[in-house]
């Protein structure tokens, strides 16, 4: 049997990926973050309409470590990070693989604005450790990572790049379609990382509502080279409001013919102890795609499900 060529050809990418993860750990350790590990198999995930978990012997494989990490925050661990495998059912494409790696971190007493800055600091640190200073070449476009990074609200992005307003898009259930077909491709042209922020409240089930604009939640995403890399919030800490939001998501799941998940009662009961915080999840595989100039997520993981 000849050596497995699919694996041989990934050698450079796997080296970059490993160096990237080392740099991430160093960044957080130098800033006194505690690295934590939480279970991958949990009784239920945070109920969200469009996120589906893979069942595992009566429980589920986690789709993110969010619930357990917030329980740690509530118990007095103010700066924590985790690099872990997460699982999402039915997600497979050039940018999706059902088992993927998330870097998730939380910090107390900061809001999503400060979290944007920290996210930028992390990615610049990782880029430097890999020898990138000014611009990264990704799929024929430059991504200039020097400060300041572009910041655009969801409302402005729809005004600038879409034929309809964000309100109209939500009404006609076309928000996601317009994001993918009209807005995300335009982010490539900006040639800098883009923070997209202030999402409609209905699209941030675990995010705090903005005081000065109650129609939006303090949520942001980061795009580089047109790839969505990061999702973050100022965390919702009001347990009653969180329960109501989860119930709304459960109703939406029910309406789409999906099974509701058990309500995460322990999380909800401890949430009232959680200080004001901000949390963020970064797709490690997708960041590796940027640093290896890869078109497909398959190029930065040793094995895809189809290879097994």
């Amino acid at each position, binding site marked *: 049997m000849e050596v497995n060529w699919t694996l*041989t050809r990934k050698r450079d990418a796997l080296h970059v990926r490993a160096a990237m993860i080392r740099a991430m750990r160093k960044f957080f350790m130098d800033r006194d973050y505690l690295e934590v590990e939480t279970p991958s198999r949990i009784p239920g995930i945070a109920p969200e309409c469009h996120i589906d978990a893979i069942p595992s012997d009566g429980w589920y494989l986690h789709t993110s470590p969010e619930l357990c990490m917030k329980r740690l925050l509530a118990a007095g661990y103010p700066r924590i990070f985790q690099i872990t495998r997460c699982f999402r059912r039915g997600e497979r494409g050039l940018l999706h693989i059902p088992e993927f790696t998330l870097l998730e971190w939380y910090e107390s007493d900061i809001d999503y604005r400060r979290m944007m800055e920290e996210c930028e600091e992390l990615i610049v640190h990782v880029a430097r450790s890999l020898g990138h200073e000014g611009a990264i070449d990704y799929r024929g476009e430059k991504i200039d990572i020097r400060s300041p990074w572009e910041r655009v609200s969801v409302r402005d992005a729809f005004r600038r790049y879409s034929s309809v307003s964000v309100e109209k898009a939500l009404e006609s259930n076309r928000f*996601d379609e317009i994001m993918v077909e009209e807005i995300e491709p335009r982010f490539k042209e900006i040639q800098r990382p883009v923070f997209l922020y202030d999402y409609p409240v209905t699209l941030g089930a675990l995010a705090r509502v903005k005081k000065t604009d109650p129609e939006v939640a303090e949520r942001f995403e980061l795009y580089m080279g047109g790839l969505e890399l990061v999702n973050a919030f100022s965390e919702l800490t009001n347990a009653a409001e969180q329960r109501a939001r989860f119930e709304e998501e459960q109703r939406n799941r029910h309406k789409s013919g999906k099974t509701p998940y058990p309500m995460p009662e322990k999380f909800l009961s401890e949430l009232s102890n959680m200080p004001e915080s901000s949390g963020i999840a970064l797709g490690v595989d997708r960041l590796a795609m940027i640093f290896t100039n890869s078109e497909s997520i398959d190029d930065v993981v040793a094995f895809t499900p189809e290879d097994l």
Partner: protein
Amino acid sequence: MYSASDLRKNLKIQIDGDPYVIVEFTFSKPGKGQSLYRCKLKNMINGNQFERTFRSVETFEPANLREKKMQYLYEEDNQYCFMDTETYDQIYLTEDQVGDAKNYMSDNLDVEILFFGEKPLGITLPNFVDLTVTKAEPWAKGDSVTGRTKPIEVETAYALQAPPFVEEGEKIRIDTRTGEYLTRVKE
């Protein structure tokens, strides 16, 4: 019935009574949003194409096609000739109907021909085919573990990337679903 998560390139589905093949496929799912399945569909009877984005709640009828094992004989003036090896009946497909499959068809290859009623419309290839390399730069020894690739060409004039140790005259196995090199084949 297929669900949206079954959609992929080359799947054949039925819309308004006509068979369609998915010629391009993209899965996307914006953060926390719903899954979107963007397809370019080709009507297998008249060749008309259109694009549509489906969502996870949609379901699809499999195309009502009959498969018959036939052997590829030859190509002439953009007509591809196939033969039923039991009855010796021959049928022809156009270059458009054959599509990407022409990259992988060497003479006498066994394939499945798709019939809509009595009309041949398309082709299903085996997942793996073995083809002879017709063009390749010579191998600079010692290059085998670096993961580098080099361009090669096979007997069908299809060009692809392969490991540096692949040489002219060798037979290689190609995955027809991805178009990628898999391994060398010793005969």
